[in-house]
């Protein structure tokens, strides 16, 4: 129990604050059953949050740095991938320095990093310095070589929580492609402050415990059914089947400090999916329900549009009701992964185009890079190489920013984390951004005063029924193969 420096007033304030939250929200419980967000998302609404959208690489990078700099008690990080490249190393080195400095002042300063085993690699040593400085690094699950799908979820959520007060959650891992301003992937995260951070942190702590369960001898000797049940009970109740809770030691005002006032005005519900807890992701079910009830507009972005039947039907059903549905995905040139990963999404795209969904494909800035290499043009900003963002915008109030690709793997095999934001201004900000992407259809690069602007042409296009034969040609005779391996991205 890390209780050094723990003060009674803080503890009382935390208890009083939580009691207030519980009482206040109790009145909303009756109505909760009618709210698809709380009912399907297995979550609660938190209010008075500050929520800032992080859509561009520089602001996201800066927000990360500033966030961990604020840390006085703990930093929790979960991520799918943490590369040994420039930005991955830079952040890791920054954390090493931070841990050393903070632990000189406070030996209880804690940094937990949770990285998926498959992305980390079996013999990875890149976290050695961080561990030597005092951080604890765990792998989530283990290497599977692709043939252990039953007890084999991958941790695909990405979050940073600092001191239980601030958090970042969304689609970015730690690698150059997320932060390099000249060759970046468009992605979305939110910077949170307020009550929602508590829920985010609770999910991290559960994932931390689950990773520990993977690492001990139980992993071998405990039958899978029992291990999964223990995890499921822990997640849904906060306690193991025995009634004991490994989370108890974190339920202090140091880990969960009371929120001072209202940092903002936005309502946020935290979403977390784990295939060890539920067979289908709550986020996918929620997305389907929201789309089914959309009245005017639906915008969905994902780099891997290999959807479940229900989601595809919900999207085409919305169009049939007169709702404008836009899907933003990568085209063949900008595909993050090729081969089966690309083919897997094509049957969905073909069906959605046939169903009247506006499918906008991003062709990336490969040609921009070529033009920059051939000319002296040095524009201040270049468009993203590819789309990696995952979001859903429904009508003019609700927006989901998430790590989930809303596809089959995210629905059945990955842990995923994100938020639903209920706020018109936030929703409008996202809409503006998506409209901005479409406006890049005829891109001209501003090369400054001394050099003429360069016309790039189309970097985004709307697919029409005429494009379907081309998609079928790319898919070839692999339809059956794609169906059989539908779990792939």
């Amino acid at each position: 129990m890390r209780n050094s420096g723990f003060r009674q007033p803080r503890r009382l304030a935390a208890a009083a604050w939580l009691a207030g939250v519980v009482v206040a929200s109790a009145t909303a419980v009756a109505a909760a059953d009618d709210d698809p967000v709380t009912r399907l998302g297995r979550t609660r609404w938190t209010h008075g949050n500050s929520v800032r959208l992080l859509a561009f690489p520089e602001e996201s990078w800066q927000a990360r740095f500033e966030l961990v700099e604020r840390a006085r008690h703990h930093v929790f990080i979960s991520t799918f991938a943490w590369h040994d490249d420039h930005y991955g190393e830079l952040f890791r080195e920054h954390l090493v320095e931070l841990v050393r400095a903070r632990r000189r002042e406070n030996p209880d300063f804690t940094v937990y990093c949770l990285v998926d085993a498959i992305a980390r690699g079996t013999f990875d040593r890149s976290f050695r310095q961080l561990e030597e400085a005092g951080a604890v690094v765990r792998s989530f699950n283990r290497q599977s070589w692709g043939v252990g799908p039953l007890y084999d979820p991958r941790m695909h959520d990405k979050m940073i929580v600092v001191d239980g007060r601030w958090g970042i959650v969304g689609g970015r891992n730690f690698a150059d492609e997320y932060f390099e301003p000249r060759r970046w992937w468009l992605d979305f995260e939110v910077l949170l402050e307020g009550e929602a951070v508590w829920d985010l942190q609770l999910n991290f702590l559960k994932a931390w415990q689950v990773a520990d369960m993977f690492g001990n001898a139980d992993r071998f000797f405990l039958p899978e059914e029992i291990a999964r049940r223990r995890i499921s009970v822990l997640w849904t109740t906060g306690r193991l089947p025995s009634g004991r809770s490994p989370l108890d030691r974190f339920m202090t005002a140091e880990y969960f400090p009371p929120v001072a006032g209202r940092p903002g005005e936005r309502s946020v519900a935290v979403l977390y999916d784990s295939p060890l807890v539920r067979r289908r992701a709550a986020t996918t079910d929620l997305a389907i329900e929201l789309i089914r009830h959309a009245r005017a507009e639906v915008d969905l972005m994902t780099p891997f549009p290999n959807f479940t039947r229900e989601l595809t039907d919900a999207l085409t059903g919305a169009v049939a009701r007169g709702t404008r549905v836009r899907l933003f995905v990568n085209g063949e040139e900008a595909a993050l992964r090729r081969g089966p990963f690309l083919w897997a999404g094509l049957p969905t795209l073909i069906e959605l185009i046939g169903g009247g969904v506006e499918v906008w494909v991003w062709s990336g800035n490969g040609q921009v890079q070529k033009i920059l290499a051939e000319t002296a043009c040095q524009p201040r900003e270049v468009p993203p190489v590819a789309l990696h963002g995952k979001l859903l915008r429904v009508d003019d109030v609700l927006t989901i920013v998430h790590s989930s690709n809303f596809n089959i793997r995210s629905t059945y095999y990955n842990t995923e984390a994100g938020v639903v934001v209920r706020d018109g201004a936030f929703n409008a900000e996202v809409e503006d951004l998506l409209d901005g992407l479409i406006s890049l259809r005829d891109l001209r690069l501003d090369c400054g005063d001394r050099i003429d602007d360069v016309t790039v042409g189309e970097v985004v296009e709307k697919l029409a029924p005429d494009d379907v034969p081309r998609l079928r040609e790319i898919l070839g005779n692999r339809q059956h193969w794609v169906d059989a391996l539908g779990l792939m991205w």
Partner: protein
Amino acid sequence: MTASRRARLLVAAIAVAVAGWAGAAAAGEGQPVIDLDAWHLELGGADGVEPDREADRSFVLGVNPNCSAVLGFPNLLAYQGNLYLSLSDSSRFSVFVGYGVEGGSSADATIYTLGWGGVRKLPMVTPQWGFYGKFLRYRRWEDDDHGVHDGLSFGTESGAGAVAVRFEIGAARSHSDHWLAVAQIALTLELPVGIPLT
């Protein structure tokens, strides 16, 4: 010090200790200040595990014939064939037993397997059966140079559709106290079949 004085001091010491403990407890020292149960009630998860997990509980008899290419000790390169029979209720338990043979350049074996795991349905777009298990094995090795060995090993195997990977480690000892190491990686082709019983 008289006995009565010692007794009074002992009582006083116990009283101080109890008072100290009670005071610390009242102050909540070391105790969580956040009501985890109330929080989970609010999150909507306090009703326990996912309801449909219980509803989906069904017994499945699994049949999993498979053949493997084996790399490792004692044969370096070997072939192996096994037949597993599994029983799973998809929710709380699963067990399997197996019989098989192994052949290689220096030792042949008869294999008896007892494991936990079994044939299960995978939630893919096109549902298919997979196999997942951890096992203990007894082998009767016929070594070309040192005769019969009795061997024990343990390992894990997982597969989706027609492909699986198995890891195994153990040892075997002959009646003349000769030892064989068993350390294998196997690539397996399999045909897992599930027969629903309920």
